[in-house]
């Protein structure tokens, strides 16, 4: 589209002008707020993304050659830059000393809770699944107590990670139709980890297309139609496929003795 700098084809828009459009800037802001729960981080990400799009005479935008719509391509660029920012920031951002002293598991917990707005429970689930923490929930509660005194940049007050006001609580999940989430949420923490292990194992054995279908619908809460498009299926085909895959998960979970309470 803009293969050469300064190419002004009829009907095409100069990237410098495109990036001043309010709807484009709003989209960048919306995306950054979604990626980064910490407001300050979201603001920094916004600048990073905008700079990334402008870099080298709007190189990313000039690389666009069709295939998908320009809008979708722009979405892809914005999300890609947000991901780059996350990786660069989380690597170098200074953490409170008390968190660093506790080790990699504590750093992950702090990032999840303070920067991503996750619950303590979700943080435990992640560090256990990733093998960063080996203890029980009781161990985790005890050992993460010092993290609770670490200041969180989002709020100038020193905010407790188990703030009863619910600042760090998960927002209510409106997608109650997500059967995997519903199951995992119902189980106690130890059985949840067992179930998660089974689900991971089954998922790893699926074809790439099936893996992505499951992840997009049950992991990312996207619509079946949208996920179906990615893997080359119509909505009804994707729905049918997911039903069969859920049956496989159910069978494997029952075989491992995982039952809903």
């Amino acid at each position: 589209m803009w293969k050469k700098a300064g190419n002004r084809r009829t009907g095409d828009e100069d990237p410098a002008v495109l990036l001043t459009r309010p709807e484009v800037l709003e989209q960048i802001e919306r995306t950054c707020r979604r990626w980064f729960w910490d407001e300050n981080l979201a603001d920094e990400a916004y600048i990073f993304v905008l700079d990334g799009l402008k870099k080298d005479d709007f190189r990313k935008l000039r690389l666009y050659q069709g295939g998908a719509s320009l809008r979708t391509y722009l979405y892809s660029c914005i999300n890609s830059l947000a991901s780059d920012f996350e990786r660069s920031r989380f690597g170098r951002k200074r953490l409170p000393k008390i968190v660093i002293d506790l080790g990699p598991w504590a750093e992950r917990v702090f990032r999840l809770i303070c920067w991503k707005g996750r619950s303590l429970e979700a943080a435990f689930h992640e560090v256990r699944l990733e093998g960063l923490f080996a203890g029980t929930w009781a161990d985790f509660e005890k050992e993460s107590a010092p993290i609770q005194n670490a200041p969180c940049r989002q709020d100038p007050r020193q905010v407790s990670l188990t703030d009863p006001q619910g600042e760090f609580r998960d927002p209510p999940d409106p997608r109650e139709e997500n059967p995997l989430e519903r199951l995992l949420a119902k189980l106690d923490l130890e059985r949840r980890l067992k179930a998660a292990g089974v689900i991971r194992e089954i998922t790893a054995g699926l074809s790439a297309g099936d893996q992505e279908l499951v992840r997009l619908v049950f992991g990312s809460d996207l619509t079946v139609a949208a996920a179906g498009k990615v893997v080359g299926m119509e909505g009804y085909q994707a729905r049918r496929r997911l039903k069969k895959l859920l049956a496989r998960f159910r069978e494997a979970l029952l075989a491992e003795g995982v039952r809903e309470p």
Partner: protein
Amino acid sequence: MGQLAEITLRPDGGKVQGEHLSEADLARLAEGQVETGEREELLAHVSTCPRCHQVLAETVRDLDAARAARQKAGRGLVRTPYALAASLILALVIGGGVLFQQLFLSPEMMTAMLTMDPELKQVLLQDESLTWTDSQRIARLAVLLQQRGVKVKGLEKVVLARPYTPSKSFLGPEEKLKIRIEKGVAYLEVIEEEEKKPPGEGG
């Protein structure tokens, strides 16, 4: 979003296959604009790469949100159960008609629908004539259509339903190019994604 399921299902990144996908490839995947063989290759990487999976998922989320926002704004929104029934019947008739034409009528006639892209726009905007006779312009269109999977043979003339003006809003409805090719003549119409309304739909 279901955090527990998201954490559980995330690719672990242990054995990432291939290089990260380009933004263009991720955009094409998100829109479903990838052929089967290539799609399998791209998904083989995405299914192992946390980074590309997340970018893909968020891009699809943005697409879905934009679509939902447009529907909410009422463009092409079907407002009554009777209008919905009418539109379904119309869709069946039209869809069946197109299929019928493709299966049973003369092989010289074919129809297709493409998403507008910059190259197609450029050839449409070359001048304002509704009927093209310039052989170079027609040949250029034929090449573009063939590159996008539309079988074109012996195209001699092109007729536009109406003059084309590109959509002003960058994040507005997607433009589609409706194509009918019959006896060496291509009939083109550019529509916006939710433009079609069933007849008799109330305001």
